[in-house]
């Protein structure tokens, strides 16, 4: 009774909030005052419970891959649009989908969970499964050291009731797997051949002070190889090819993680062929390689979040000779890491914008790269960049941090920021 009242109140507030524009966490916040157990009574009641996807990088991609893999097996999946990490934000998403009686038409929920929020969410909703993508050198201004993230993810994984699936090529996650004693752990193994093609340190933060670790964690789906955006995955010796959301070994690992959790949930009825076909036809996740059309020109948006994702982005950048625009602001508080990346795939740079423009210009000038223009003002930079693309007929490539990606999309008039339309 209280649940349906909470959902009704939430739905009404949602309508008002939508009309006023913004405030996406408010319906959830109010509904959870009416019914504090909103999340456990809705998501917790699902047949296969709730899957948390966490880690430094690839959370959105993996969340969408897990949802896709499970849907390919005939399951109805509830998922949160990226960014809604807080309990109240997830509550809002639940209210949007729930019936007035408070039930969700789903068998399983997949939630993207920020590294620091596993512990915040756990009191509201217990995960049945936890999927961990990687621990990278990421947002040091906020996380300080990768070791601290190890502690956060270990705490989140400890809440899993059914199991944990980890990327076994990440020494930090293997350590977490070995520290979990009360919950079954499965790993995605990555072949030496596939790893050898990738720059050292590109996938995970190094782990110090542990010596040689014996890793006998049970395996699920493994990565045999990745070539130009096509992965060969293997389950119990049976191989399957998957067209990935983009080029790069990280996408192969994310896909194998998704298949592994589906395999753990469904057991022998998991059909990897069906999952592979479904993922092969899935669309690119927003912000990672998406091409937008603006005023008659095409601009590919590539997000740079940390050194690992930047390396992956540069590997997957199709045409290094394209006109490059780099946009970064103080949403990246400490951009020191731009000095750690091999930028040899970047030839010259057409435009650098926003408050970190001078930082980037310093880096590029030490590399002897030519810089056509530095324009701290994003609006001005967009106008001048687009006019250059128009006059030359070139396609553009925007390398940007998250904050500038949102700001520039807004300047382009893409107002529905969450769906990317």
């Amino acid at each position, binding site marked *: 009774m209280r649940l349906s009242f909470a959902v009704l109140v939430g739905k009404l507030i949602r309508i008002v909030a939508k009309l006023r524009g913004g405030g996406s966490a408010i319906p959830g916040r109010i509904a959870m005052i009416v019914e504090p157990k909103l999340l456990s009574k809705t998501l917790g009641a699902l047949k296969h419970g709730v899957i948390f996807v966490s880690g430094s990088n690839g959370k959105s991609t993996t969340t969408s891959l897990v949802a896709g893999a499970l849907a390919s097996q005939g399951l109805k999946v509830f998922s949160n649009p990226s960014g809604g990490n807080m309990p109240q934000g997830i509550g809002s998403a639940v209210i949007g989908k729930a019936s007035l009686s408070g039930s969700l038409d789903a068998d399983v929920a997949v939630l993207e969970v920020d590294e620091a929020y596993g512990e915040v969410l756990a009191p509201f909703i217990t995960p049945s499964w936890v999927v961990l993508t990687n621990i990278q*050198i990421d947002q*040091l*201004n*906020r996380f*300080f*050291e*990768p*070791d601290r993230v190890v502690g956060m993810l270990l705490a989140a994984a400890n809440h899993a009731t059914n199991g944990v699936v980890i990327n076994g090529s990440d020494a930090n996650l293997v350590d977490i797997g070995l520290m979990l004693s009360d919950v079954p752990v499965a790993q995605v193994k990555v072949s030496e051949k596939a790893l050898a093609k990738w720059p050292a340190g590109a996938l995970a933060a*190094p*782990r*110090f*002070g542990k010596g040689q670790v014996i890793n006998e964690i049970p395996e699920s789906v493994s990565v045999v190889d990745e070539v130009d955006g096509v992965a060969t995955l293997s389950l119990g010796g049976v191989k399957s090819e998957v067209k990935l959301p983009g080029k790069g070994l990280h996408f192969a690992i994310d896909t194998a993680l998704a298949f592994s959790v589906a395999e753990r949930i469904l057991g022998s009825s998991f059909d990897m062929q069906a999952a592979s076909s479904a993922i092969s036809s899935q669309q690119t996740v927003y912000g990672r390689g998406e091409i937008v059309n603006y005023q008659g020109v095409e601009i590919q948006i590539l997000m740079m979040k940390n050194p690992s994702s930047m390396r992956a982005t540069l590997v997957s950048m199709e045409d290094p000779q394209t006109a490059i625009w780099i946009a970064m602001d*103080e949403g990246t*508080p*400490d951009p*020191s*890491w*731009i*000095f*750690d990346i091999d930028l040899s795939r970047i030839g010259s740079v057409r435009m650098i914008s926003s*408050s*970190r423009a*001078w*930082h980037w*210009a*310093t*880096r590029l*000038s*030490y590399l*002897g790269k030519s810089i056509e223009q*530095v324009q*701290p003002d994003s609006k001005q930079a967009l106008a001048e960049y687009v006019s250059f693309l128009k006059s030359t007929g070139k396609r553009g490539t925007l390398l940007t941090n998250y904050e500038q990606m949102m700001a520039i999309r807004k300047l382009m008039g893409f107002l529905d920021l969450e769906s990317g339309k």
Partner: protein
Amino acid sequence: MSVRFLHLFPSQLGLNGEAGNLDVLVARLKWAGIDSKIETFDGSGSIASGYDAVFIGSGTLAGALEALELLEAQASKLRELAESKIPFLALGLGWEILGESMELLDGRTVAGAGVFPSRSQRIAERASAESYGYDQAGNLTTGYANHSSEIELLNDSQPLISLEAGFGNSSRQSAKQRSDEGLLNQNLMAARLNGPLLALNPHLADQFLAIVARNSGFSYRQISAEAKVADAYAAKARAELRDRLAR
């Protein structure tokens, strides 16, 4: 003339653009017509002689403690190099393990390599903030502070920079001496700011290279066109940070 750098523990202590500092030194020497090469020590074998300068970067606490353990047998060699006036540039946790001692959070005190006249105490409080101030010559100096300890300077060492905003040798919000950042003592230079420090602050790179040049007996003057371009960009990056923080 070819300048020989020794880079200590590049893999254990190379967390956040640290190698960029050496890239800057090498590029500036090249722009001045001087060759250089970098040799590394990561714990295996022993440290040789004949270096013109030694560099150590920052990293994670686990990485630093691993490096300190691997350094044990080589600490006397490093002290010998420092006593013979070879210039050292140490950053962040690399500086802490080359100091006299480090007190850890559990109360244990571990001996450092004893190269730098300083000692540190790890604290629970963490500093994470953009910072700016001025070096001893009055140059605007900026960077990012991200650390969790208090460093005490010993034996007449001077702070390298005096901060007006952010965190220096203490990560404590309440610390009186928060404005003191880094250390300068003859051939020894240390700092905690990220940036990388020398990329954003070429005056510090040139100050260090001048110490190297004096000690190794060559002349270093930076008047290249390349430096003029890079330094103009870095100056704007520093001004942007200061103006934003001072607002």
